[in-house]
């Protein structure tokens, strides 16, 4: 049984969701994530669930709101322009404290942009996007195996915290194929959901809403949400540290970009420059603490933030570094990926500069 299967990223996400007990999928076609829909269309009904092609991304996220309010494990997926349309729903889901999983296979923007991979939705994913004070847990896998495992985990986190969990991938992860090893049984955590709309038999009626007209009630609700977010920052922050123990230059990169940088570490070390990397796995909550600690480390001379955008996560890196060490940036846009060589050349220059 323990056999690796070669699968496309988007299809793995869909398979993982069904394995995680997701039985309600609502979506609208958009490249480069549409294979998630195709896979759902083929398999969801057989799994005893609902696949529904909505009239728009707006409708799809509101169907998720309804299905989740009714107690179902529900998800939607899209890519950047479609995610923009769903932001209204994200805010309502946050306000109503509903579990939901949303996949964003990011493409290059702004506007209709292009269909090639990018990380230009970092701000939108981690800083809000919709209106009001709210947070979503944002998970950034970097391989097909991680897409599988983290999608399963996303459903558990969504139920546990009653909030939206976003899988933030990019066109590369969605479209590429890698071997994936599925577990025999998924670690599904069942929750009771006493708050769900199931009919009021034997109890007072339930309501799901995000409106609190009385300012004190709304402030109390906001305080409750913020307390939940602080607890998540404590418990759910995840990152991978690679060869940071003796590093002079620390790369910070996530997702596909971290895959490219991983190879650069080895190449730089072969040339005598000690490079390490922090790969944030959760983009919110952000692993600020480990970056702050490294910044204080005397062996660390500089940070290099590499992204598939014009510089978004770098703001969080700089906040964590807090001016203690220089933070350099390298980014590509338009759907282009940086080559290992261009990152390596930059690291050599940075190394020279900080050792002068």
């Amino acid at each position, binding site marked *: 049984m323990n056999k690796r299967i070669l699968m496309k990223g988007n299809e793995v996400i869909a398979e993982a969701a069904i394995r995680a007990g997701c039985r*309600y999928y609502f979506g609208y076609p958009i490249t480069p994530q549409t294979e998630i829909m195709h896979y759902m269309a083929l398999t969801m009904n057989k799994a005893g669930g609902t696949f*529904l092609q909505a009239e728009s991304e707006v409708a799809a996220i*509101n*169907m998720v709101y*309804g299905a989740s*309010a009714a107690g179902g494990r529900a998800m939607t997926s899209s890519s950047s322009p479609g995610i923009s349309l769903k932001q209204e729903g994200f805010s*309502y889901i946050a306000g109503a404290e509903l579990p939901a999983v949303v996949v964003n296979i990011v493409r290059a923007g702004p506007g209709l942009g292009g269909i090639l991979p990018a990380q230009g939705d970092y701000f939108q994913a981690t800083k809000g996007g919709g209106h009001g004070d709210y947070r979503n847990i944002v998970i950034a896998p970097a391989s097909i195996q991680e897409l599988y495992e983290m999608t399963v985990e996303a459903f558990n986190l969504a139920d546990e915290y009653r909030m939206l969990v976003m899988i933030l991938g990019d066109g590369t992860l969605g479209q590429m194929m890698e071997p994936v090893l599925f577990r025999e049984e998924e670690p599904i955590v069942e929750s009771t959901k006493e708050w769900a*709309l199931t009919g009021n038999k034997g109890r007072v009626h339930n309501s799901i*809403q995000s409106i609190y007209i009385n300012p004190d009630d709304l402030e109390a609700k906001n305080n409750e949400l913020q307390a939940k977010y602080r607890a998540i920052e404590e418990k759910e922050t995840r990152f991978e540290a690679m060869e940071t123990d003796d590093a002079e230059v620390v790369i910070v990169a996530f997702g596909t970009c971290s895959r490219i940088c991983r190879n650069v570490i080895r190449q730089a070390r072969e040339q005598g420059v000690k490079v390490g990397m922090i790969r944030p796995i959760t983009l919110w909550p952000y692993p600020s603490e480990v970056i702050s600690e490294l910044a204080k480390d005397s062996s660390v001379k500089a940070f290099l933030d590499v992204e598939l955008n014009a510089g978004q996560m770098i703001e969080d890196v700089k906040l964590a570094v807090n001016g203690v060490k220089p933070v350099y940036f390298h980014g590509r846009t338009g759907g282009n990926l940086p080559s290992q060589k261009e990152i390596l050349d930059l690291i050599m220059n940075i190394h020279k500069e900080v050792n002068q």
Partner: protein
Amino acid sequence: MAIVFEKTKGLTDKPFHYCPGCTHGIIHRIIAEVMCEQDILENTIGVSSVGCTYNNYEYFACDMAQAAHGRAPAVATGIKRVHPDHTVFTYQGDGDLASIGTAEIVHAAARGENISVFFVNNAVYGMTSGQMAPTTLLGQVTTTSPFGRDSGLQGYPINVSEMLATLTGAVYIERVMITDFKNIQAAKRAVAKAFRVQKQGLGFSMVEFLSTCPTNWGKSPVESIDWLKENMVPQYPLGVFKGKDLEV
């Protein structure tokens, strides 16, 4: 002493916040009465929308979700797919359903989504203080058509019931008015029929209620009822637009 009238158990004890002469309260009551008469209160999930009735999740005694502006049919779709054996309804005004929510209502009807929609048409945005709605009549003065709705500038009213009746997935659509005892009883029969259509799994049903807004029309409740009959009914004739011969 014999009880000759009592408040329906389909409503909570929370006092309505609606303006004097507003007909939302009557529509709430007849929906609640029908839920009790059909013994479906414990198996019904309603969806509130955005507008004057944003908080009727506090008034109906069944489970309720509150939806974003115009999205109630999509939310109801999600609920119904999880609980196909429950009765699911939306309660929406004309701004919510006929303006910002046109895509959601058209596609819910087109899918034959097995839900019941209660559409309250008072030809004006009530909650935000009397702006022009898609259902505002030609010549009607509102805060955003202060010189009267001009077809050259603002187009024409939308007859939602007639429009949705063209869709195969819509199986029962009726327009009623909340003006007097006889018509309120007719409205209640329409609500009962919509729920029976859903119970039998036949598909999408909608009742459109012609309704008054004395506050934003600048009229007394009695004048408002006369205005409705004289002005709204010619544009929005009463009747069954789909499912006339449906035996349920």
